[in-house]
């Protein structure tokens, strides 16, 4: 019959093509990310006694869930820069050395990798480019905090160094180490903290800051399009955070936020904050 009616064949073929194209263009809705960053603001500079110098040190972050989540975890942390503690004082990386070539020369990182592995644990290694004053650095991030948190819990975890970052551009290497928490010595330096999740807002001011979570937020059974936002202000005096030496203007802080959707990393931002 079809052979006998070329028009019908043509109509059938055209219908097939048009219908397929229509379905593919009209109904092919792209899958949203599990978690998307809406805002990510951080200060241009961090200095101790910033209020006296008229500098505001506030951080603001918000994200939205792209689907229903059984568990959403946001992990905030701050890393501070120090001279790379190479195993041999006179060792310096070449321009051709990769980040992976540098790591074995950093005993602090190598030691933790071996320690966690020997106990059957896992750690997270991420690669990310970080832009510092317009210069892109290759970055390698080591995070041991999930393993360390198993034993002593989130509040204690924020006291110990649990993560490292190594940034490299040419032969220059920058080394960072830090802890979980909205800021280093959070109890002493965070003046105000506001956490909103799915319409519920909690504020911590003054003495109540001590009751705030220490940089790790977990939410269960979160519907699609739930918004979480965190805003906080930092005010450090000269005595607090001894790791940050006043006047080290060539150094940086790295404020990091990671979002895990049902256990998988879905979002990672690293904000370089120069020290003043």
């Amino acid at each position, binding site marked *: 019959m079809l052979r006998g009616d070329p028009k019908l064949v043509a109509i059938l073929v055209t219908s097939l093509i*048009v219908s*397929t194209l229509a*379905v593919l263009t009209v109904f092919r809705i792209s899958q949203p990310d599990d978690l998307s960053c809406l805002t990510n603001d951080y200060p241009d500079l961090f200095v101790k006694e910033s209020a006296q110098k008229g500098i505001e040190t506030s951080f603001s972050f918000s994200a939205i869930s792209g689907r229903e989540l059984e568990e959403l975890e946001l992990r905030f942390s701050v890393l501070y820069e120090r001279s790379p503690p190479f195993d041999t004082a006179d060792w310096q990386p070449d321009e051709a050395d990769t980040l992976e070539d540098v790591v074995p020369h950093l005993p602090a990182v190598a*030691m933790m990798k071996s320690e966690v592995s020997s106990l*059957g644990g896992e750690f997270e290694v991420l690669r990310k480019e970080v832009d510092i004053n317009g210069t892109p650095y290759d970055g390698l991030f080591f995070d041991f905090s999930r393993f360390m948190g198993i*034993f002593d819990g989130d509040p204690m975890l924020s006291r110990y*160094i649990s993560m490292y970052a190594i940034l490299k551009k040419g032969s220059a290497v920058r080394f960072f180490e830090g802890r979980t928490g909205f800021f280093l010595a959070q109890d002493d330096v965070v003046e105000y903290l506001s956490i909103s999740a799915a319409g519920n807002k909690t504020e911590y001011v003054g003495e109540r800051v001590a009751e705030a979570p220490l940089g790790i937020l977990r939410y269960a059974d979160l519907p699609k399009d739930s918004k979480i936002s965190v805003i906080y202000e930092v005010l450090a005096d000269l005595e607090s955070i001894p790791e940050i030496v006043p006047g080290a203007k060539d150094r940086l802080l790295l404020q990091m936020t990671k979002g895990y959707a049902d256990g*998988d990393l879905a979002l990672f931002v690293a904000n370089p904050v120069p020290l003043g």
Partner: protein
Amino acid sequence: MDPRPCLCVLLLVLTVEVALASGPKPKILVYSYDMPGFGRGVAEILQGRLGEQVELVVLEDPSELSALMSMPEVGCVVLAVMSGNEVKTLVDPLVAYFSQGGAAIGFQGCCVEQQVGRLSRDVFPAFGNATGSGSVKDGVPVNEYVRDASLEAFSDLPDQFDLLGQFFTYPANASKSVIEPQIAEGSRMVLFRDKKTNAPLVIGYETAAGSRSVSFTGCFVRSQETAKNYYGNLLQEPRFQALIGDAVDWAMQGSTRHAQHSSTIGEMVREEKERLDALRNHALSAKNERQRKKLIFLVLAWALGLIAVFGLLYQAFLRRTPRASR
């Protein structure tokens, strides 16, 4: 058949099982920043005393100590420091470690309140705000130790002895007299005092959380080999070797952190892995379900579209043809 090989295999299997069940060996972290040789010397003494029961780790970087201290198999932390600067970035992690039932030994650098704040109150309750000097005997500076509280763990030491050391720190009132500080919790025992001033030289401290520490407020030594109080000379003294060994033994035996964690390390790591795997599997199956529904929807939409387009074209062309021919 000779049963000995089978017995040997059985014995080996049992030994491995017992080793795994009892957890990894306790680690003793010995830290010194300004005088790494002193730290290494203390570690050697402890290795000689405790042998293969423990693993000694010598550290010279405060950051490495801050990270490693949190590990579950740490049995004791020894801070072989003379200055508070060596531990100023370690106050928070040390207080956290100790509050969780940890064991710690601290030398004078951990005991001066002005330099290390709450470390000298909450972990090493020496409350040192004044400095005293020892005696000079045969041209050598010494602290004269006299026993105060008796603890079985320190019974191998005589009731009175001298040890190399120049200064000691102690809690004092405005007129520099020794005072006894009141502590909020736990039991603070002065094990040895200075003969002349009655200032505490060795303090044992135990909390309800199962934490134990020993503070050495004296033993002030220097790194210069020419100095009268060169640390190498202190390390040679059998009384010092006995004292530091007793202190580590006592602190480790009573502290609860390692005991609690060592038997459950594997289980806790496995539980966390299983929790994350369950979350990921749930997310994966939910994603597969969403994709399946989307595929069904697409097939249905496509079929409907196909029928609709066919219908329209059929109406437009095939049904019009007969009319046109008429």
